[in-house]
């Protein structure tokens, strides 16, 4: 332990083992991986759509391999999502509702990808272009994924899951600020905000 800390503070690294011990990945992996799932799936959708409309064989291949990539990375996305959830002690409230919905929808998106992948494999195996019905299915799955992405975005950007207090603050950031209001809870939150402002003024 002492040895590792001395290396960390600038001492020479003389073996692979020491180098391995110094490796540190502090950023949560889930928000990184989720972009691969989404981007590859959307890329597949785009390539297949254009390939279908203009009969471009290379785009059909792109559609297949990007779908393979999307499906391959998704189990890791799910696992890292569960790991991220383990790190955040969320109390009962709107934030946790978002987390629960996000958790419920994750495996559904994976299931849709599995089903689409099998369907897509049929076209690839026989060297055919995808059908209109398949594209309709992918657009449907894309819609579900959009909802899932929105829920994930709310968890990070509104409630700061795994971000709040974990990173350096941006210039001009106020620690006194409250999270942006939800439309549905604006009345409650406004009253909470008033009460907090009042208590701050009292303490000043």
């Amino acid at each position, binding site marked *: 332990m002492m040895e590792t800390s001395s290396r960390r503070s600038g001492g020479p690294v003389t073996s692979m083992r020491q180098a391995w011990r110094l490796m540190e990945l502090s950023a949560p992996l889930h928000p990184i991986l989720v972009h691969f799932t989404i981007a590859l799936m959307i890329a597949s959708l785009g390539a297949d759509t254009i390939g279908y409309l203009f009969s471009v064989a290379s785009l059909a291949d792109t559609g297949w391999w990007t779908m393979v990539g999307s499906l391959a990375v998704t189990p890791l996305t799910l696992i890292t999502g*569960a790991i991220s*959830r*383990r*790190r*955040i*002690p*969320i109390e009962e409230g709107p934030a*946790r509702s978002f*987390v*629960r*919905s996000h*958790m*419920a*929808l*994750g*495996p*559904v998106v*994976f*299931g*849709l990808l*599995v*089903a689409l992948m*099998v369907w897509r*494999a049929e076209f690839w*195996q026989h060297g055919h272009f995808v059908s209109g019905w398949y594209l309709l299915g992918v657009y449907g799955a894309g819609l579900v994924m959009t909802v899932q992405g929105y829920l994930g975005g709310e968890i990070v950007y509104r409630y700061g899951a795994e971000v709040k207090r974990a990173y350096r603050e941006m210039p001009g950031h106020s620690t006194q600020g409250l999270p942006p209001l939800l439309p549905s809870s604006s009345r409650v939150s406004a009253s909470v905000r008033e009460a907090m402002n009042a208590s701050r003024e009292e303490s000043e």
Partner: protein
Amino acid sequence: MTPTAFLGLHPFQWLAVITAGATLLLLVDAFVGHYRRAFAYRMQYAPLVTGLLLIVSSLAAAIFSGPAWLNQLLWGVGWLAAVSGLIGFGYHVYYGIVTKPGGVKWLLHYLMYGAPILAPLGLTATGVLGVITARGLSGEGRVFGLDMPVALCIFVAIMLAGTIVQAAILHYRGAFNNPVMYAPLTVPALTMLAGVWMALAPSTLVRAAFAVLLWMTLLVGFIGFGMHLRGLDREMGGLYIWLFNLLEGPPQGAPGLFIALAAVGLVGIYLL
């Protein structure tokens, strides 16, 4: 219909992969359930041992498809797993109901709160699937006196019936607190009926209906996965105190059985 390869794998290689996957999911739930009871009986280790053997032999048969001894091994391990599941069923009935205060007079109570009565038969089923797979990999077109596709339809129908009953018992215990908890009693039940129909009087129409229902059952399985994960997070503390809630929450691997059975059915109708 001659067997058709899919993505370079023979249908029975796919069945071997499905056998391994389904067994893994069963083992996760068996481990959690038996760990919760602190492995009070040594026999509680049995499904883990036979299940692991089944996973290894299935994967080996899928990867190195060909050697006769490997198929024979899968056949033997399949029967071992099937028997161990039957013994487990006896244990669950005896120690989970008969010897409990009130015994069978409190049947409904122990069905809900005792050891899950049908869970060990899941291992029996994956064992039987291993046996069917081994026969298929050996090049045989019939098993248990039936053509392979018919045998698989009947297998899926029987297994779905058991899974639906077990899900119904446990969701009843959960007071069907979410409407989605009725899902295992709807689409999979229709799939089961279509499977029986397909086995008895196959036709193009029944086959199409069976295929659609199998796809829907597959999605129901994934929805179940999501909802069970959500159920785990509804417990106090959720995944933040994951071990406790994993022991007390909904069984995480259980909905996977619907996925596995749907996949078996799909292999049966599309590739065989």
